[in-house]
C-alpha cells in the first residue's frame, strides 16, 4: 500500500487526506485572506478601466493638408502626448470614424482620464508633434460606458441570486449546507476581488462578466462535494460506525479526484485564453477574462474542499442530533479500543499514511476512521473478486 503514490490513491478516491481535522487551520487561512482582501479593497480600491471610470477622447482628422496619417501613427502620437503630461496615462482604444457625408475620416483615440488642463496640454503636444491644425483636433471627456445603473442592477441581481440559491439549497439539501455553500461562494468572490485590488489588475467589463461566471462555477463544485456528503451521511445516526465529521472527510476524499479533475478541465480552456491573451497579445479582453476566471475558478475548487465542507461540519457539530451521535460513536469506540485488537491494528496501520495533526476532538477519532472504510470495502471487494475474475478484465490480465 505504501508503494502506491499519492496520485494512485487520489485516482482511487482513497487519498485519506485529513481535511476536516485541520479545519481550524483552513478557517484561519480563510480569515486572513478575507481580512487582507477587504482591507485591500477598502484601502487600495480597484483599478477601474475606462469603461467604468470614463476617460478622455481625442479626435484627429486623418488628413491634414497633404499629410495622411494612419490610425497607428495617430494612436502612437496620442500615447506620446499624454505620457508627456501624465506618465500613468495610457491609450485605451483607437477607432476610425468614417463620415458618410464625405469630408475624410477621423480618428478617435480614447485614453485614460485626464483633467481638463492636462488634456489641453496633451492636445497642444499632439498638435506640435504631428503638425496638425489645432482647430481640427478636439478633446472631450468621455463618460463611463458602463453606467452606474448597470452596476447597481448587477449587485441587486447578485443579492437576489444569493437569496434564491439559498432557498434552493435549503430545499435540495438543508439550511446548514446552504449556509456553508453560500459562505464558500462569498469567500471565493471576496478573495478574487481582493486579488484584483491587491495586484492592481485593471477591472473591465470583461472582468465583471468573468466574475459573474464564477458565481455558478464555485457553487457547482460545492454541490458536487455536498452531494457526496449527503449520500455518505444519510441515516448516519442509525449506526455508530463513524461520526458525521469522519463521514464528511471521507466524502471530501472521495470527491477529491473529482474536484481536481473538474477544476483542471474547466481551467484548461481558461489557461488557453490566458496564454494567448497575456502571452501573445499582451493585454485586452482575453487576458482580463482569463485572469479573473483562473483566480476565481481555481480558488473555487479549493474553497469547496477546504472551506465549504469544514464549515459544514462546524454547523453540524452544533446540531443536537449529530452532537449526541458523535458522542455515542466516540464512547463506543473508547470502550471497544481494549477489546477489538485486530481492528485497532488494521486501522492503526493505515493511519500512518495519514497526516498526523489531529488536535480537534472529533479528529482524534477521525484518524482511524478513514482507513476503516477501505478496509470494509476490501473485504467485500475480495469476495467479489473471488467470484469475479472469470468475467472481469482485471482478472484476465492477471
Amino acid at each position: 500500500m505504501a508503494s502506491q503514490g499519492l496520485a494512485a490513491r487520489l485516482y482511487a478516491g482513497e487519498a485519506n487526506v485529513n481535511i476536516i481535522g485541520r479545519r481550524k487551520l483552513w478557517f484561519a487561512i480563510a480569515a486572513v485572506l478575507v481580512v487582507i482582501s477587504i482591507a485591500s479593497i477598502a484601502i487600495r480600491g480597484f483599478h477601474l478601466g475606462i469603461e467604468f471610470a470614463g476617460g478622455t477622447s481625442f479626435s484627429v482628422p486623418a488628413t491634414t493638408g497633404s499629410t495622411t496619417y494612419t490610425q497607428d501613427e495617430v494612436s502612437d502620437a496620442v500615447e506620446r502626448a499624454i505620457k508627456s503630461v501624465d506618465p500613468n496615462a495610457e491609450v485605451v482604444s483607437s477607432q476610425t470614424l468614417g463620415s458618410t457625408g464625405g469630408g475624410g475620416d477621423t480618428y478617435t483615440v480614447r485614453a485614460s482620464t485626464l483633467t481638463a488642463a492636462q488634456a489641453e496640454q496633451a492636445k497642444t503636444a499632439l498638435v506640435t508633434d504631428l503638425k496638425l491644425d489645432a482647430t481640427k483636433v478636439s478633446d472631450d471627456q468621455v463618460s463611463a460606458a458602463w453606467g452606474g445603473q448597470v452596476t447597481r442592477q448587477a449587485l441587486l441581481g447578485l443579492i437576489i441570486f444569493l437569496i434564491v440559491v439559498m432557498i434552493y439549497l435549503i430545499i435540495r439539501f438543508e439550511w446548514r449546507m446552504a449556509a456553508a455553500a453560500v459562505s464558500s461562494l462569498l469567500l471565493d468572490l471576496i478573495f478574487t476581488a481582493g486579488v484584483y485590488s491587491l495586484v492592481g489588475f485593471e477591472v473591465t467589463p470583461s472582468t465583471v462578466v468573468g466574475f459573474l461566471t464564477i458565481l455558478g462555477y464555485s457553487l457547482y463544485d460545492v454541490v458536487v462535494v455536498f452531494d457526496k456528503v449527503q449520500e455518505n451521511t444519510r441515516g448516519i445516526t442509525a449506526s455508530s460506525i463513524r461520526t458525521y465529521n469522519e463521514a464528511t472527510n471521507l466524502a471530501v476524499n472521495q470527491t477529491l479526484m473529482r474536484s481536481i479533475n473538474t477544476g483542471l478541465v474547466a481551467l484548461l480552456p481558461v489557461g488557453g485564453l490566458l496564454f494567448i491573451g497575456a502571452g501573445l497579445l499582451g493585454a485586452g479582453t482575453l487576458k482580463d477574462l482569463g485572469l479573473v476566471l483562473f483566480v476565481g475558478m481555481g480558488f473555487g475548487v479549493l474553497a469547496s474542499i477546504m472551506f465549504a465542507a469544514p464549515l459544514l461540519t462546524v454547523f453540524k457539530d452544533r446540531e443536537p442530533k449529530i452532537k449526541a451521535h458523535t458522542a455515542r460513536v466516540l464512547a463506543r469506540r473508547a470502550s471497544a479500543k481494549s477489546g477489538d485488537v485486530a481492528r485497532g491494528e488494521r486501522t492503526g496501520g493505515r493511519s500512518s499514511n495519514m497526516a498526523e495533526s489531529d488536535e480537534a476532538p472529533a479528529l482524534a477519532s477521525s484518524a482511524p476512521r478513514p482507513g476503516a472504510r477501505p478496509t470494509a470495502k476490501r473485504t467485500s471487494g475480495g469476495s467479489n473478486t473471488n467470484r469475479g475474475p472469470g468475467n472481469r478484465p482485471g482478472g484476465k490480465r492477471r
Partner: protein
Amino acid sequence: MHPGRQLAVLGFIFVVLYLLVFFAGGASGSFTDRLHPKLGLDLVGGTQATYIASVQGGQVPSKESMEQARDIIDQRVNALGVSEAEVVIQGDRNIVVSLAGKADDQLKDLSQAAQMRFRLVIGATGDVSTVALNPPTATPSAAASGSAKPSTSAKPSTGASAPAVSSSASTGGQGGGEVVKAPTPTPTPSASASASAPAAPPASADEKALLAEVQKKVGTAAWAAASKLTAPVDLSTDPTAGKPYAPFAKLSGDEVNVLTPQMQMYVPTIGCTQLDARPNGAIDAVGKQVVACYNGGKILMDQAKVVGDDISKASPQLDQQNGQWVVSLDFKSEGSTKWAALTRQAFEATSDAPCYTAATAMYGSIEHCAVAVVLDKSVISAPQIQGVLTGTSQITGQFNASSSKELADQLNFGALPVTFSSGPAQTVSATLGTQQLQAGLIAAAIGMGLVAIYAFFYYRLLGSVIFLSLLLSGLLTFGALVFLGRTVGFTLTLAGIAGFIVSLGVAADSFVIYFERLKDEIHEGRSPRSAVPRAWARARRTIISANTITILAAVVLYIVSVGAVQGFAFALGVATVLDLVVVFLFRHPIMTMFASTKAFLSPRVSGLGRVLRRAPTDVKEA
C-alpha cells in the same frame, strides 16, 4: 428511454436548429453568409451616432440628467441586453451611441424624449391659417363648404379622419364656431377664463426677451388684437376676420412657442406647420395648457393630469377585433387613481363643459369628452372616453407591430429628462479587429485541445465520448449563436466568444462527475454494464442540481440586471441549456451503448482499467 430514441431526438434538434440557421429569421445571402454570427463592435466595427442635448434656458443639462438620459438610451438600444451597444456621454452635452454592424435604422429614433402626457381636450378649431391669410374672394364657395360641414361631422369616422388642409380646414373652423354658438354661448369665455389662470408661465429671461421681440415683429395692433382673443376667430361669418393677425403667420416655431397657449390656439393665422416647428419639448410642461395639431386641426389641451411616469407597464398588443396594433397600459396605483379621475372628468362632462364643446367640434355628435394622448410634440390619438377607466387601458393610433413595440419600450424605459437633436450617423472601425478574433479562436482551439488531451489521457476511450460531445456542444452553440444573432440581435464580442469557450470547459465538468461516479461503482465491484445506469442515476442528480444553480443565476441576472450583465446572463443561460441537452441526449445514450460493447470492458481502452485492476491488488494486500 431507449438510447437510440434519445439520439434520434438530439438529431432532430440538430436538424431543426440548422434548418433555422439556413432558412429562417431573415436568412439571406450565400451559404457562408448564412453561417455568420453577429459580431460585436470590438471585432467588426459598426455605426456611431451623436445626439446633442438641447440647451434650455441657456443652461447645459445637469450631469445627473445626462447620466439618466444615457441609461435610458442604453436600455432603448439594448432592450434585451444582447446587442452590446456602447453608449457614452462625451463632453457636456453629447451622447455617443455605437452599434455593431450597419445600424442606421436602429439609431434613428433613439433620442426621442418620449414624454407622455394625457390631457383633456378643452378646445378645438381647424387649422385655418391658409384661409385666414387668403380669404376666399368668392364668398359663396365658403358658404358651400360651410354647409357641407354638418353632414361630415354627423359621421364621426369621417370627421375624425385628417381633413385636407385648405378646403376642409375652413369647414372645421366653421364647424367649431357654430357648435360653440349654438348650444350655449357662455362656455367659451368661461373656458378661456379658467384657462388663462394657470397659464401664466414663469418665463425665463431668454423667453421674455424673445417674447418682446415677437411683440415688435407682429406689431402692436396685431398683438393687441391677439391678446384680446378668448375664442377662435370665426371666419365663416367674416372671411376677412383673419386679416389683423396676418403678421403672426411669419413667426418661426421658436417664436410661436413663447406665445401663450390661448394665442397659439385662437390666432387664426398660426398654423400647424408653425406649431409643429416648435422646439422639442414645447408641450411637455405638465402644469400648463398646451396647443397641438391633431388630424389637421388645432386642439387646446388642459394641464396633464396623467403622465408617462404613472404608467407601470406598457406592452404592444394586436387587437383581435379589428386587427389593429395598440399599446396596452397598466398604471401604477397612484397613476391609476389619477387616470380614473381624468377619465371620469371626460366621461361625466355635461354639455356645458368646454371639453364637451371641443369634442363636438372634433367629432360632430358626441356624448363624452376626449382625452388626448400626447407623446413629445405630437398627439398620438384623442379618443372620446367611453367610461371611467381604472385598470388596463389601450392607446390606439396608427400603429404597426414595430411602432407599437417601440412606443411600449419607450414608455417602459422612461422618458429622457433632456431633449436631443441627432447628428449624422458615421461608420466606426473595430477597436480590436480580426487579429484579436483570430487570437480568440486560437485560444479556443488550444483550450479544447488541452481538454481533449486530458480526457484521452485520463479516461482513454471514454475520452472520445468527451471529445465528441464537446464537438457537438460546439456545433449546437454555434448554430444557436447564428440564429439568435439574426433574430434577437445577439451580438458576440470577444468577451462573449471567450465566455462560450469557458462554458464548453465547464460543460466537460459534468462528464468528469459522471465518469468518476462510474469509477466508484466499478470500484465497489459492479460490472460496467450495471454500473453505467447506476452511476448515471446518481450523477444525474448532481448534474441537475449544479446546472439548476447556474440557470438560477442566469435567470435572476437576466431579469434584474441591464446592459452587459444582462447579455452575459443570456449567454450563460443558452450555454447551460445546451450543456443539459448534450448531457441527456448524447452522453447518456452513448454510454449505455458503450457499456454493452467489448471494447468498454477492456482496461486498456477504457479509462476504467486501473480501477478494474485495483480490486485484485487489494485482495492480495488484505
